[in-house]
């Protein structure tokens, strides 16, 4: 589904991603872990098409097509979803209106008729139950005045509504208490299928107690330096990022 080859990207002349290689297949859950500043969020942003970053080299194939060629909205319509680390507030724009616009854009892209108001509301009700989100959130403006936890839950709700093929969740667990974390994880697990893939970007192992990954990658200084199964996360938890630092050859400093 997603093949990243030797991807290098920089911001204002500073190289952040220094050659990322990664392959994600349908039905898989990947976790990308790493210390602050290792390039996790940059990778997520680059895949979603944020133009803050310059792509220096490398390629990204998404369902056989060149992902980097496409605009952010085309990527979204092709089923790529980014759960934001810091979801954005849009005052005055209701969640209902926002989601309806998004869904109907995607349906149009697939050559389908827009959803009627009642179909849409029905879908919204179902997905709210699926991700156990508080009903009142969807009656408000997009993320406006939401608590940190509510914003993150709202990202998962949007993911449920949009039914992406590839979801990238950028530190969806940060700033969540344990109850909120469980709700978010449950939401994600409910959405998992053999048809779609999920990339979970996280700082801490604790999310992976609830969302069990097939692969764990450790990103360090712009490179994936270790790949393993879910036990890698536990090893990392035990030894800390110091361990990765020590293992990293001096030549890459």
């Amino acid at each position: 589904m997603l093949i990243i080859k030797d991807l290098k990207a920089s911001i204002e002349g500073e190289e952040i991603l220094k050659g990322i290689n990664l392959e994600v297949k349908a039905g898989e859950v990947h976790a990308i872990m790493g210390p602050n500043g290792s390039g996790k969020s940059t990778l997520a942003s680059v895949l979603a098409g944020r133009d803050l970053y310059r792509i220096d080299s490398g390629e990204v194939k998404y369902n056989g097509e060149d992902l980097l060629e496409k605009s952010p909205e085309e990527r979204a319509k092709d089923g790529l979803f980014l759960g934001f680390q810091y979801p954005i507030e849009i005052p005055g724009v209701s969640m209902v209106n926002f989601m309806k616009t998004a869904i109907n854009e995607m349906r149009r892209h697939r050559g389908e008729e827009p959803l009627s108001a009642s179909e849409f509301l029905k879908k919204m009700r179902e997905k709210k139950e699926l991700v156990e989100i508080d009903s009142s959130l969807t009656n408000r403006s997009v993320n406006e005045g939401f608590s940190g936890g509510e914003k993150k839950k709202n990202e998962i709700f949007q993911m449920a509504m949009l039914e992406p093929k590839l979801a990238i969740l950028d530190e969806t667990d940060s700033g969540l208490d344990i109850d909120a974390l469980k709700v978010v994880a449950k939401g994600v697990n409910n959405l998992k299928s053999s048809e779609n893939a999920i990339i979970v970007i996280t700082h801490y192992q604790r999310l992976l107690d609830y969302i069990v990954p097939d692969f764990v990658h450790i990103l360090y200084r712009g490179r994936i330096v270790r790949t393993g199964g879910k036990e890698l996360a536990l090893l990392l938890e035990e030894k800390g990022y110091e361990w990765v630092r020590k293992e990293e050859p001096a030549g890459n400093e």
Partner: protein
Amino acid sequence: MQNEQDQILSEVTSGEYKFGFYTDIEQDSIGKGLNEDVIRTISEKKNEPEFMLEFRLKAYRHWLTMEMPRWAHLNIPEIDYQDKIYYSAPRQKAKLKSLDEVDPELLETFEKLGIPLQEQKQLAGVAVDAVMDSVSVKTTFKETLAEMGIIFCSFSEAVREYPDLVKQYMGSVVPYTDNYFAALNSAVFSDGSFCYIPKGVRCPMELSTYFRINAANTGQFERTLIVAEDNSYVSYLEGCTAPMRDENQLHAAIVEIVAMENAEVKYATVQNWYPGDKNGKGGIYNFVTKRGICKGDNSKISWTQVETGSAITWKYPSCILKGDNTTGEFYSVAVTNNHQQADTGTKMIHIGKNSRSIIVSKGISAGLSNNSYRGLVKVLRGAENARNFSQCDSLLLGDKCGAHTFPYIEADNQSAIIEHEATTSKIGEDQIFYCNQRGISTEDAIGLIVNGYAKEVLSKLPMEFAVEAQKLLQISLEGSVG
């Protein structure tokens, strides 16, 4: 990245003006220039009674002693008042008995603008007075309204048919001495709408005036007078468009509203005069004086405006809250793009006890435009427990435009409570990207965000027009997002 953003911005701001066509129709105009003879000619052409001519001449003589106001945050080029035509009318038969006698070209023009004048084709529940250049072309539903005692007709007709009412109220809210443009209008005004709601009557339909400037080099000077007697209610809507022309055209109007005891008047404007092209060439100079007086106790006047057009807008719809327990409201969305300039706001004058006012102003600036809010809240000595709440928000698209807020507060009564809140925000790249990531294009994202921002004001418009206004906001900003 900056360049890319600029490019998107310029694309969005370069949306085309949809109403720029010109109707080729025979005009009855008088020559350019302004003097007492011109004023006499206008009055004569309109078969006006003597008092009207006297009013005009007094106003003209006063105007000569005045100077163009310069205090607004506007850059207004010198205007040559002798180079304008002050009267132009589509030539038609002297008296129209039915719609069949209206020039088909005229009907077609208003059809194109989406204002069908055939009553059976009307939006349910809206009566329209259509004004082209200097004269009222047709007023619909007049007879239906007359059955309830409501008078809704062109101003010229009112001068002839109801001279006592006109004499009593004309200039009572905006005297001809009020300001430069009010004096000019009082001297040369051509037509406009008149509306009278008798005691205890709730007007059953929206009343609407549609203004269209068509002829070249012609100023449009209309006046509207609305009188709502005790316990009456009326909701009024005004729309305006003009052809695209390279030269600037002058529009100086007056609207006066009188609300008696327990009366309520809602006045909404969707102003879409030609704003000029991308480079700031052409466009309407819109210098308008709008004011209402809550004369009787418990009366209420509410102004709602959506201002998207005109090269320059100078306009402050105001309320004089004279009666006790009166309410004044001002809800405004003003959009400026490219080289447009707007200096707009309101005045709330609290005289009566327990008078309340609310001001919600939403400015949106894009391109190279300048958008100012200017408002006065004045509480006089006798206005016990007066209360005002003002909220002035500015939204910027791009980094070459300007937003300014000039709030003035004068309170002479200790019990007054006046609150003012102001915010300035930018449509963030991160907001747009967030929408993009959900599959929404940049243009649609801007539409969503801007309409969300203006929602509080748009929701005050009558339903049919709220939808139109939403579209208009998006079109006005087409090509402008950053």
